[in-house]
């Protein structure tokens, strides 16, 4: 699509795009290029020179059991976050949509967590489950369950999943509610007249009509779990215990900044880059389809 009108000039438009061009080149393209470049080298033990190793960093990564484990951790984590946050959000959206009046009040309250930073969400949940002072962990102790996410990897995973999903509920809720409200009332009324009960209506009409929203949220939530949950993990578990909660993005950080292994960290960045690329293509394919829907 093109505009029919265009203004004349050469220097003015170049001047207009200049700020964005500079910022993008310096802080985006150059670093991204650096990541690719550095992934082909390893520094010597004294950090004085770089040695070209070709795809050596990648080979090393894929033969490294910690890195492979991190892939599995990431997959488990993002699937759980997506399912939990979308499930809860859908449940709340369906209920709010059933209300003829007052859904606005619930909406106002339910969008709060969106404003809470993932890192702050991490602190809130950490506080509840803290092994020494946590209220929830204390009551669990009273019930005879010894909660200790500092030592138990599954509990650590459970905690970061809940904290991450919690912060995402608002977002999913808003999109689900909008999707539900976009379904014409007449369609649902027609089904009701045909004698379909609530669950039948939901399964046979609402859910299929909602599927574009659901697919969209699926992709967006996976991207969120991959990249935006760093704050939650860093505040609650710092990747532990024994790397049980080290997802890929966290590993880029810990290898690059904590262990100063630049070559490996850069190679991991490149792999993440590829993953984002695939997710983006999926998303665009899907959006394309949605246009025809």
């Amino acid at each position, binding site marked *: 699509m093109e505009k029919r009108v265009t203004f004349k000039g050469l220097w003015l438009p170049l001047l*207009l795009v200049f700020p964005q061009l500079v910022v993008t080149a310096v802080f*985006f393209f150059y670093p991204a290029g650096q990541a690719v470049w550095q992934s082909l080298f390893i520094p010597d033990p004294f950090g004085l020179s770089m040695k070209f190793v070709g795809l050596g960093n990648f080979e090393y990564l894929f033969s490294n059991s910690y890195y492979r484990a991190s892939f599995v951790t990431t997959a488990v984590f993002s699937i759980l976050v997506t399912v939990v946050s979308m499930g809860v959000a859908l*449940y709340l959206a369906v209920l709010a949509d059933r209300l003829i009046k007052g859904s606005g009040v619930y909406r*106002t309250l339910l969008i709060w967590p969106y*404003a809470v*930073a993932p890192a702050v969400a991490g*602190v809130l949940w950490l506080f509840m489950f803290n092994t020494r002072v946590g209220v929830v962990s204390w009551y669990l102790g009273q019930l005879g369950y010894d909660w200790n996410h500092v030592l138990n990897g599954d509990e650590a995973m459970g905690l970061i999943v809940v904290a991450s999903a919690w912060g995402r509920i608002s977002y999913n809720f808003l999109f689900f509610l909008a999707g539900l409200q976009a379904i014409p009332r007449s369609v649902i009324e027609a089904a009701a007249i045909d004698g379909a*009960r609530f669950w039948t209506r939901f399964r046979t009409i609402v859910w299929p009509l909602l599927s574009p929203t659901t697919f969209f949220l699926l992709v*967006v939530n996976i991207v969120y779990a991959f990249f935006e949950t760093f704050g939650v993990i860093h505040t609650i578990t710092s990747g532990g215990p024994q790397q049980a909660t080290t997802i890929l993005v966290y590993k880029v950080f810990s290898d690059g900044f904590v262990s100063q292994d630049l070559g490996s960290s850069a190679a991991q960045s490149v792999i993440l880059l590829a993953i984002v690329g695939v997710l983006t293509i999926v998303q665009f394919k899907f959006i394309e389809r949605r246009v025809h829907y």
Partner: protein
Amino acid sequence: MSESSGMVEKRGLGHWMTHLGLIIGLLFIFFPIWLAFVASTVTQPEIVKPPMPLLPGDQFFSNYRKALVSGVNAPVAMMMMNSMIMAMGIAVGKIIISLLSAFAIVYFKFPGRRLFFWLIFLTLMLPVEVRIVPTYQVAANFGLLNSYSGLIFPLIASATATFLFRQFFMTVPDELAEAARVDGAGPMRFFWDILLPMSRTNIAALFVILFIYGWNQYLWPLLITTDPSMNTIVMGIKQMFPSGDDTADWPVIMATSILAMIPPVIVVISMQKLFIRGLVDSEK
């Protein structure tokens, strides 16, 4: 349930069950926030001897005063100021450069336009987390550590806003630009007098999204600020936890958590309509 009537409208028991379901959801959402608030109003001994109380205590003013004025490593008031500068800088900076470049892309034909368009399109894909190490090196080489420029500029380098404005400009009728030309307006005059006022709602909606995005940043400030006086509040909370076995100053930490969520919550709630619109727009 009254569902047996087969009606779509809810009355009686079903109606109340709906409310009950939503209220359970709200409790789940608000319990962590409530607990944080309670913890921020009681004394340290009340917390470290579990179970802590579930109703607010009387230490509200002293805890918040302590957090704001002295904090743990740096006064929280100072960290909030840093966060505010960072969030405003990101929101305003990104809106300005995006408006300008979107205007150029849509209303001019200049050499390299297509290339530029695809370059910024690429940036849509990559969150800062992915290219974090090299970006950090660039910032360090420019001497941007512990500076507001270092906090702001690297996070402006993405084109989501440019895309939004481009989409919006495409919907502005061609005739308006033509009418402006006939009226004698040059490109910048048209931009300033007509395009900008027409984009007000889009700008506001985007501002809400970007402000929250900036305020809630964690990893980047964590890397770029080593000086506690440059910490932002969201990343500063984690710094408040003592290393080793010392007991954390929970009331102050939780007061800080509450303070960290207040500005974005105010923005989201008070500009709810714009916020939802911005959210939907920026995901299209």
